[in-house]
C-alpha cells in the first residue's frame, strides 16, 4: 500500500505501527518520503524516551507526547532530526520539573510541621 493519499489540495502521509496510525498532512509540492521519516523519527524518540513505547504510555502521558512533538516539529517543519539532541532537551525539562516537585514536597512538609 502506498503511504501517501491525496486529499483535496493536500496529501496525507501515514504510517502504521501495530494498531497505531501516525498521520500527517502535507502540501501538494512537499517531499512525501521525508515526511514519512519524520513520523518514524518521532516514534523512535518516543520509544527511546518511554522505553519500548506503547499506546498506554501516550495516553497516560499525553502532555509528554505533545512536548516531545514540539521538540521535533515547529510550524510544520522538522526542527531537530537528531534523536540525541531532542532527548537532551526533553530530559533537561524533566530535570527542572523534578527539582520543582521535590521543592514542593519539602515546602509542604515544612508547612505541615509549622501548622
Amino acid at each position, binding site marked *: 500500500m502506498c503511504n501517501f493519499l491525496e486529499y483535496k489540495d493536500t496529501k496525507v502521509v501515514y504510517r502504521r505501527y501495530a494498531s497505531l496510525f501516525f498521520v500527517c498532512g502535507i502540501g501538494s509540492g512537499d517531499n512525501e518520503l521525508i515526511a514519512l521519516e519524520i513520523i518514524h523519527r518521532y516514534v523512535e524518540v518516543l520509544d527511546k524516551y518511554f522505553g519500548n513505547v506503547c499506546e498506554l504510555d501516550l495516553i497516560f502521558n499525553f502532555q509528554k507526547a505533545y512536548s516531545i512533538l514540539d521538540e521535533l516539529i515547529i510550524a510544520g517543519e522538522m526542527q531537530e*532530526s537528531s534523536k540525541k539532541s531532542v532527548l537532551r532537551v526533553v530530559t533537561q525539562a524533566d530535570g527542572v520539573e523534578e527539582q520543582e516537585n521535590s521543592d514542593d514536597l519539602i515546602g509542604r512538609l515544612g508547612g505541615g510541621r509549622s501548622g
Partner: protein
Amino acid sequence: MAANMRGLTQFIADIRGARVRELEEKRINKEMANIRKKFKDGNLDGYQKKKYVAKIIFTYILGYKVDIGHLEAVNLISSSKYSEKQIGYLAVTLLMHENSDFLRLVVNSIRKDLDENNEVHNCLALHAIANVGSSEMAEALAEDVHRLLISPTSMTFVKKKAALTLLRIYRKRPEVIPAAEWALRLVSLMDDQDLGVVLCVTSLIMALAQDHPDAYAVCYTKAVDRLHRIVIEHEYSGIYTYYKVPAPWLQVKLLRLLQYYPPTEDTTLKNVLNETLQIIMTSSAEPSRNVQHNNAQNAVLFEAISLAIHLDTRSPLVDTAAVLLARFISSKETNVRYLGLDTMAHLAARSDTLEPLKKHQGTIILSLRDKDISVRRRALDLLYSMCDIDNSELIVGELLRYLKVADYVLREEMVLKIAILTEKYACSYKWYVDTILQLISAAGDHVGEEVWYRVVQIVTNTEDLQEYAARVVFEYLKTPSAHESLVKVGGYILGEYGHLIANEPGYSPLEQFQALHSKSQFCVAPTRSLLLSTYIKWVNVFPEIKSQLINIFERYRHVLDAELQQRACEYYALACLPDDNEMLQNVCEEMPPFPPRVSGLTSRLNRKMADTEDKRTWIHGGREMNLEQQMTTLMRSKQAEVPVNESTTASGAADSTMFNALAGLNLTMPSEAGESGAIPRLTVGPSIDKWYKKLTYSAEGVLYEDVQIQIGIKSRFQGYLGQLAIYFGNKVSAPLTSFTSTVYVSDSEAISATFAKIPANILASRTQSQQLLQVECKKVFTAIPILTVSFLAGAHQSISIRLPITVTKFFEGVKFGQADFFERWKLIGGSPRESQVVFPIALDAAGHIDLPHNRRIVSGNHFEILDGIDPNPNNIVGAAVLHTSVDGKVGCLLRLEPNREAKLCRLTVRSTSEEVAAEVQRLMEAALRTE
C-alpha cells in the same frame, strides 16, 4: 521521566475502564462538574490548577466539548514553575481558537517568557506562538522572536525554535517581517556550526526567498556550498546521519531552495552543483534492506532529480535520472512507483522532448490499473502531462476506457483533463466531436458545466464541424440512457444546426423533435428551459412541426416554475405571430461566433494557491502550460515590486514637471534600494574613493580597510580575460564567521565575474585569505562590478565597494608611427565618435605640469604612450585596442593637452565605438581631474 499527577492518572484510568459510552460520559460529566465547582470556589494552589486543567485537556482530546478552564490556563502560564507553565501553554494551544479573546491576555505573559533569561521558558513561549500562530501574536512578538534568533548569546536549541517560529509568523502575517532588511543577517545563519540550526534557518529562508528572491540571492551560494560540504566533503557530525544518510532533511530543503531560483549562470557554482547531484544519483543506485535508509535516500534522490530537471532538462544528469525513473515506475515498492510517476510528470512538464518518456508509455498506461489509488492518480497526471499531437489518440482513448472503471473521486478531474487534451491535440474535427461526446455520455454526472459550454463554443465557432456534430449528437440522443449533459449539448446543437441535417432520411424534424423531447421529462428545470429555447428555434426553421411545438409552449404556460413559465409564455406569443411578421426570424437568427476566449477548463484545474505557502515548482500539464504559469507568476511578482513607480507615473503631468525640477536630487529613499535588493548600496568614505581611483590605473593595492578588515587586490589582464586575486585580512583577535563575498554585475551580457571556487565561510583571527575572481569582458560595459563582503563579528556587518574592473583594463597598447596615427585619427573623425572634455588638474609641488603622474595614469589605463607625435612635450598621445569576447576588438586613440597657466586640461578620445569613446573619456577624466 518526571513524576505524574496521581489524580489525572486515576481519571484517565477510570475513563478507560468505562465499558460503554454512557458510563464514560457520566464519569466525564461528574469530573467536569467537580472541576467547575472547584474553580468557582477559588483558592486553588498551582498544583491543583495544573491537575484540573490537565484533566480538561484530556477530556478535550477525547473529542468532548469543554468550555471551562480557559482563565485558569492563562493563570498557569504566568506561574514561575515549569510544569505548571507547560500545562498552561498546552491548554492554550489546544483549547483556544486563534481568535479567542483569552489569547489577548496571554500575549504579555508570552513576551515575558521570551525575554526571560531562562531557555526552558523561552522555548515554551516559542512553541506557543508557533502552535497558536494568531495574527495578534505575530504582530506583537515578531521582533522578540527575531531577537532570540540572532542574539549571539542564544543557545542553539533556542535559535532553532526561534527560526521556525518566525517562519510561522511570516506565513500568518508576512507584512510584520521586514524580510528584505533582515535578509543578509538571516542568511548568515545558514553558516552556523550546528546542522540543526542550519536546517531551521533554511526552512525560514526558503519561505522568505520565494517572495524576495533578490534580497535573499546570497542563499543560493550558501546552499550549494552546504550541499557540497555534506555530500562530497562529508562534513557533518554523526548525530545528523539518519540510517547512514547524512542530514536528509537538510539536503531536501537545500535542494528545494535551489529550485526556487533560476538556474545559476556562475560556472563555478554550476560545476559544484553538477558534481553534487551526480554523487547523489550514483550513491542511491543500490537500495539497501533497511526501509528507513531507502526512504531517506530516495527522499533526497527525488529532490535531486527535480533540481536537475529544473537546472537543465538537456543535461546528462537528466538522462541518468530518466533511466532511474524508468526503473522506479515498475518498482515493487508502492511509494517508489508513486514518486517515480510523479517525478516523470515533472520531467514531462519541463522537457523539450517527450521521447524518453514515450518509451515507457506502455508501463505508464498499465499503472492506470495499479492496485493503489494514489499510484493510479499519478499515472493519470503523467499521461495528461506527456500527451502531445502524436500520442493524443492513444492516450485519450486509454483515459476514456479507464474512465468507465475509474474511482469516483477521480472522475471529475479525469473528465476535465480528457476534455482539455481532446481540444488541445485534436487532429481532426471528427475525432474531437466523437471523443468529447463519448466522454460526456460515459462520465455523465462528473461532467462539469465548463465541459459542455466549451463544446458549444467550439462547434459554434467552427463551421465545418456543425453538420457533423448535429448528426452525431442526434445518434447519442436516440440511445435510451442519454445523460442530461448530453441532452443539453443536443438541445443546443440541434436547435442551432438541426436544419443542416433535416433533409437526410432518419434525421427529419419530427424525428429530431421526438428524440429530444422524449428526454425532457427526466430533466431538471434549467435543462427544460434550454429545450424550450431549442423549440422556438425550430418553430422558425421547421414549420412542419410547428403545431406540436406550440402545443408544448401552451402546456408549459401553466407550470409552477417561474422561469419555465415565463419562457413558455414569451415563446408561445412569438410562435403565434402571423407568418408575415419578421419578428420570429430576427429573434432566431443563427448565433454569431463567440469571441475567442481562454478555455475555462485549464483555469478550473489550476486553482490558486495560498500566498505564503511553499509554491509548487511545476504544475501538471505540458511544457507550454508550465511556461505560461511561470510567466503569470513572474508578472505578478513584477507588479508587486513596483507599486511606487506606478503611482508616480500615474499621477499625471503636473507632478512629472515637479519631478523634473527635482531631478538632480536623489529622491529614492535608501531603504528602498535595500528593499529591492537588486543593486547593493555602496559603502561610502573618502578613503574608499581614493583607493578605488588609484586601483583603476594600477594592478595592485589596497581596496578597503577599516579596524576589522583589510581588502587588497592583485590583478592581471590578458586580452578579454582577467584575474583578480582578492586578499581579505582579518585584523581582529576573533574569527570573522559567516564570511560571505559576492560580486554583483548589473549587465551580465557585457561582463562576467565569478569566483574560481566557493570561498570558505570563516576568516580566522589575524589571518589572510585569498580568493580568485575570473573576469571576462564580453562587450563594452560601463557598469562597474560591485563586491559585497559580509561577516559576523559580534554584530552582522556588510561592506559594498566597487571593484577596479573598468573597460580600459581590457585594453592593450598599440604602437603607431606619426603618419599611421594621424591617418587613423582622421579616419575616425569628430563627434559622435569623438568625446572631448576640459577639466581642472593639479600641478606638482614646483608648479609645473605633473607629467610623470599623467603618464602613469595613461599607461595605467593600458594605453601605449606614443612619444614624438605631438610637438608639445607636455601633451600625451596614446593608442590602444579593446578586447571583448563577443564584439571583437575596438580601437581607441587619445590625446591629453594640459595647460599650466589655466590649470586646465583638455582630453580628446576617439574610437570606432561611440560607447568606448564616451566611457574612456569618463574614466580618464575621473582619474586625472582634481577637485
